[in-house]
């Protein structure tokens, strides 16, 4: 919430609005709705051919009272957004799956829609236990070209990260 309020107009922002877990066969899959906005500077950078790497970090933990939570599952997914100048399309790549969009907002919509992302197997959770799920989406600064890293250190434009979205999932319906 803090991020949402501090994100001023004109700046890049990323905010997870909702997240849930759903069962698909043997798996639990993550669905989340991310509110994402690029600043003008970033849009320009994307159109110049910069490739943006986003990380979707998911964690399932058993909360403990007087100690750090016990991490059960930690999964990181990579999503890439890039511009193909020749075909004038924006490409969103998840693993080996690629989607092409003519407009950036279409690509952004696709990017911000996390659906059916397999995060853990059913066998990894035990019935009766209490779990806490955490999801975070952010721009991977390490993958940025070096010339932008100096820039990224100084300006907020390149510090894209959502808040840590926490919820108690109802795993055993």
């Amino acid at each position: 919430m803090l991020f949402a309020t501090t994100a001023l107009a004109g700046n890049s922002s990323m905010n997870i609005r909702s997240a849930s877990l759903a069962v698909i066969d043997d798996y639990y899959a993550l669905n989340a709705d991310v509110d994402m906005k690029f600043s003008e500077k970033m849009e320009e950078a994307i159109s110049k051919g910069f490739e943006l790497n986003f990380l979707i970090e998911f964690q399932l933990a058993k909360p403990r009272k007087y100690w750090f939570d016990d991490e059960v599952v930690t999964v990181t997914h990579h999503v890439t957004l890039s511009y193909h100048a020749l075909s004038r399309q924006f490409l969103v790549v998840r693993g080996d799956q690629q989607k092409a969009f003519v407009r950036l907002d279409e690509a952004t919509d696709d990017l911000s829609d996390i659906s059916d992302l397999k995060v853990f197997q059913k066998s990894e959770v035990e019935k009766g236990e209490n779990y806490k799920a955490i999801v975070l989406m952010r721009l991977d600064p390490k993958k940025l070209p070096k010339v932008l890293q100096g820039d990224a250190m100084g300006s907020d434009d390149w510090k894209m990260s959502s808040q840590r979205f926490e919820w108690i999932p109802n795993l055993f319906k």
Partner: protein
Amino acid sequence: MKYVVLVSAALGVFLLYLLSNASANTAASGEYYTLLVTLNGVLAAFLIALIGYQIWRLYRQIRKGVVGSRFTLRLLASFAMMAIIPGLIVYLVSVNFLTRSIESWFNVKVEAALEGGLNLGRTALDIMLADVKEKGESMATALSFQPANTRSILNDLREKSGIRDLTLLTVQGRILEVSSSDSATFLPELPSVAQLRRARKHIEATIEPIGNKGLYLRVLAPVSGQDLTGEMRILQLLQPVPKPLATTAEAVQDVYQDYQQLSYSRASLREVFALTLTLVMMLAMLSAVAVAFVLSRRLSAPLTILAKGTKAIASGDYSTMLPAHGKDELGVLVQSFNSMTQQLGDATKAADSNRARVEAARGYLETILAHLSSGVMALNARGELRTFNEAAMNILGVPLQDYVGLKLDQINLKYPRCENFLLTVAKNSLDDVEQAGAHKEEAQTQVELLSANGKQILTVRGTRLPDGGYVAVFDDATTMIQAQRDAAWGEVARRLAHEIKNPLTPIQLSAERMSHKLLSKLNDADAEMLRRSTETIVNQVDAMKRMVNEFSDYARSPAPQLQKLDLNSLIKEVASLYDQSDSKINLSLEKQPCPIKGDSTMLRQVIHNLLQNAQDALTDVVDATVNLKTKIDGEMLTLCVQDNGSGFPEDMLLHVFEPYVTTKPHGTGLGLAIVKKIIEEHKGSIKIENGSKTDVLQKTGAIITIKIPLLVEVMSNIES
């Protein structure tokens, strides 16, 4: 400190190498760039702290005045200047050059050319796409009248048109029919849902990069005729862009995007390079300054050691040897310094031993002088008193220590008593100055001084000192001369007595016999005359005999028979004999008994002589009085006889104790001489002086004071 500096400098070099690598390599170490910058920054901060600490230490040393610290500062300043100035110049030039050259990379022509290339590719693709689209439209028209069994038609169409894949799909995306010239693909690439949706309304043509397969042209054409189930169909044409064109177009696109990226990030690129350069410069300079500290300390260290050595020598410590310091010039300097220190030490030791020897010689001389019975006085070239010995003070009775540095005539003003002596010495010393060179060493002069105890005779010799001064050696010859004189008088008296006494008895006998024989034969008048003459002869001969006896007594002077006696009772006894005389005798005697060791006969004679003398002096004096007084004064018993007569003539006072010196018309002059002799045999002293008018008797008169030592055992009794 040295190692810290060296290690941090080495670390700095390593980090700089990594950083320059990271700056040069666009992507590989990109993700470590931030970390490296931070590390370098931390190192630079550490170096700054190190240098700050060093400067602070140096400042404190300078404040404390530690030797060599100022020299270190100067060396440091020079080293730092040598490092910083060229470094700064190179840095400024590089930064300037870099920013300008980065700007020059980007210009409009290159950008336009790249964009043109890209557009060329796009246009080529568009033309191809338009061609495929056209084919798609005609195929869709052909298929619209063919609700089912489309396979052969599809194959037919494909072969005719030269399209690689033809796929007939439902609106939902389900594959109805596939025709492919590529046997390797079983399933064609399917369009996305959005594309399908759009394709329902009008023909959709896109260029798509597909995964690993490269660029494809995709056309989705709605088939207007419905199939058997009444559903609408969509025909997909998938044609790969020819390999050479695709590669070239992709290459152009890559270069264009790279260029765009660089252009976009040129500001930050400039910043990165400037930052890297700045860090390099800072680290290099800071390391240089830190190393300069170490170097300047190393260079100034031997100087510090030398300075410490010099200080030690200045404070008189010749034992410090500096540690050897290599074989360079500084080492040689240290070696020379050490040998110099040693030589100095040896010289000082020699000087010390010389001084000790001189001191010993002086002490030896002083001891000899101090125990010399002769008085010694040394004058400097200006005739001022320089040194003297104990005996000189004792003989002269002058505290000479107060007059060192004064001329003799100045001392003379204070002690006129010593006038004769001082003037003689002064004259002698001056004489010597005048006849410089002529030796007159043994010129001995006799000087008479008036002292409290009477006449004092000094024999004075003098000689010139090599430094122009004068030394006078003198002896108190009083006792010796007195003894000589006494002995001479004794001899005279003995001879006189012997020569005169012999004819006296025949003279007396002859006169008596003459009187006896002739008296009866003469008339009364003649007889009377003879009797008177004879009587005169006999009396005079008697008187002469007595006088001769006195002389002989004085000359014979028997050894005194010393025994314990009380002087007071002796005085009372003798004084009682004078009760009937004209003069009055006042006795004021010490209340305590005054035991002394003496010869009672001799002492009785002393008292007789003194009283007789007093009475003789008082023959014509009205209210004649003689005061006789005894008093214990420390270890001595003082006997004082005072009269109110006319006293002694001033010129006689010096010679009054000599024999045959008298004021009386018929005296032998032996009385006081005998008194003095007796008193001296009793180890006492006698002094004679004329009283002043302020005395009790209101008249001048002679005062004779005798001092005789008290018996020692009585002394202890008195004390107890």
